């Protein structure tokens, strides 16, 4: 076996080799996840859990500014479901995509 065979063609393929559950495809993909895992994860390490470049809600708000709750000010982290616990992921837990027929907003 040569190095070339071990060397996966893309970053995502490398990640899939140990995180096959993220490979899908799934019905409702989260676009940046399909495109590149390191858009949100910094493999060199970070202060955040899951090696996230930023944690929620900041991470999500760098890409979402919908009318309504996605762009609301989250003042203190430990107050409500927007800043406390898993923040946006309290409700949008299927952040890598959902295979639920009614899962388009990554909530189930």
């Amino acid at each position, binding site marked *: *076996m040569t190095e070339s065979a071990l060397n996966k063609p893309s970053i995502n393929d490398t990640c899939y*080799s140990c995180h096959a559950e993220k490979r899908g495809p799934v019905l409702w993909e989260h676009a940046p996840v399909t495109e590149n895992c390191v858009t949100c994860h910094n493999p060199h390490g970070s202060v955040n859990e899951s090696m996230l470049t930023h944690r929620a809600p900041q991470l999500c*708000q760098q890409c979402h*500014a919908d009318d309504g709750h996605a762009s609301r000010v989250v003042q203190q*982290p430990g107050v409500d479901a927007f800043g406390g616990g898993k923040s946006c992921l309290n409700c949008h837990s299927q952040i890598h995509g959902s295979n639920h027929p009614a899962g388009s907003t990554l909530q189930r």
Partner: protein
Amino acid sequence: MNFKLNIITASLLLASAPVLSANFAVSQANITQVDQQNYQCKRCEVNSGYRGNVSVAAGYIESDDVHAANAFGTDQDGFVATANADVQYQNADGYQAKFQTHQLGYENSFALMSAGKPGLFNIDAGYQLITTYQSGDAQSNLYYDQGTLVGSTLPYAFELSQQREKMALQAEVQHDMYQGYVQFDTEDKSGYTSSSVMNPSPVNIGLVVDSTTDSFTAGAIVNGANWLTELSYFVSQYDNNSQDLSFTYLDDVYAAAPDNEAHQVSLSGQYQLDSTVMSGRFIVGRMIQDDDLISMNGNPIQNWDGEVDTTDATLKVSSMLSNRLRVGGSYDYSNRENNSSVFEFQQYTFNDLNDTFKENIATDIERATYKLNAKYRISQGYRLQAGYDREEIDRSYSVREETHDDTLWGKLSIRAIDNVIIDIKAEHSNRDGSTYQTDELTSSEENALMRKYYLANRTRNNVELSINHTPLNWLGVDISAHYAKDDYDDTVIGLTESEDYGVNLNLNATVSKHVSLYGFASQQWINSAQASSQSYSTADWYTDVEDEFINIGTGIHYGGLLQNKLTLGADYLFSNSNSDTYITSTGTTPYGDYYSYNHSVNMYANYNLSNEMALKLTYRYERYYDTDDAQMSLDETTSFITLGELNHNYSAHQVMLNFSYLL
């Protein structure tokens, strides 16, 4: 040409990096490097018979937080025992065997066996356990009854940890210019990870992880004096044994990750003509997911025909034009074509199914990367490298379908000063792309000023400097620094800038024949700024995030004591990570505490009882603290249910006595 690499050992080496950085980033510098030495080819040694060493260790661990197991390798508390072996056998005919174990009996351990004759055949078998611990004290009042979450009045405590148990088998045969290999591995993953469901307000849960991933690779290689070609096939199958989740009164609140499979056929080759090396690879792949879908109102199908076809190609050329100049170039192409069917599915508004129907989106992504580079030896001791890279990405159904990044970089290596190596690297890159469009398939409610950072125009500047100085033959000093800045000048809403800079200092001293010392210190900062709009127009509030890491370590190794029988040593490591977030709307308010620190101490004494036998006494201390103001206890809010505060604050000790025997 030597391309050989054993996949099992390679995957272990690979695995060590993400795993160790997997637990809170503060332990980064604690990475106990997998000893590369152990994986090196020992075939050139001709001595026959057994070589290597075996050891048994027993000791005591005192810890009241399972998180310490990330450092100690086992979550056992109290008396512990483990065995290690690294034995090689070789006979006069050249047959070899190898057996290696690491921390057998621990939750992080491996065993490897290998037998064969170089140039003829080789068989490898491996077993590996990787366990990572997040918290031993998560709280929930939901029990699993198959796929149903059943509430109880009192919360119970459970452990958030995940374990992977992997077995691998590999066989290789070689004959003249032909080589063939097969490799199979199977990995079971189990445990609990944190997740959340809507009930209809959010409830954090310990999500059951119970899955198996099998993969198989087979390939053939033919090589000549100056060429090599390889054909291989890879298949991987993921089976999730955990179920979709429901409450007794609310169905299907969570869809488990579906089973999936992936196939790849790869053809690659290398060719060398005089001073020009060419290599190429062509891979076609297919990813399939056709698991049963949850059946419900508004779902027109029983199972989806999720299918993605991939094509990847690489071509690389590198040529030595003169004894001073080497030029190279490469082209990479990658295409992900999502051929899955598209249907309309009824969606929920909050928790009622309503008349909103939505189509799933099958995104295609196409990438092309071009690279050109040259390496020029200016004079003895000065080498200049420069290059230009361009990456183009096209993705369908996006607000910006095409983006391209152009990068110019240069690197100067100076070896002209005695005992000093200086490397300077600079990089400038620019991203631009097609005009933004509002796509009916993407969220219609998105603020039109939003520029998602992975699509946005971006200027990146990056400089790195590293100096290795050996002022005395017993003293080494390494200094390095980097500064990188990303500017998103055209972004009104979204990430507007980020910078990442840091310094490292490393000292190594061999003070005498028996005493060596080291010390290092590093600090890194990552800052970013983003703008948001609560009024759904221009930016009206801002967030600044300032992250910081510090790592400091020092150690001494003192050998040659008691007539060369005794070695003493100690290592100390301190790591700290801190993150500050500031929200500016009417005024500026900081978030609460979010930081962690870790002190690690390791002291050992090794005593050689004889030439073959040694006793080693080791003491390890781990002090770990982390706090995150976002963590909430169960009774802190009524608006949703958490898993409790998952912060850590502990001191843990480990004492081990190790007896080793050199064969």
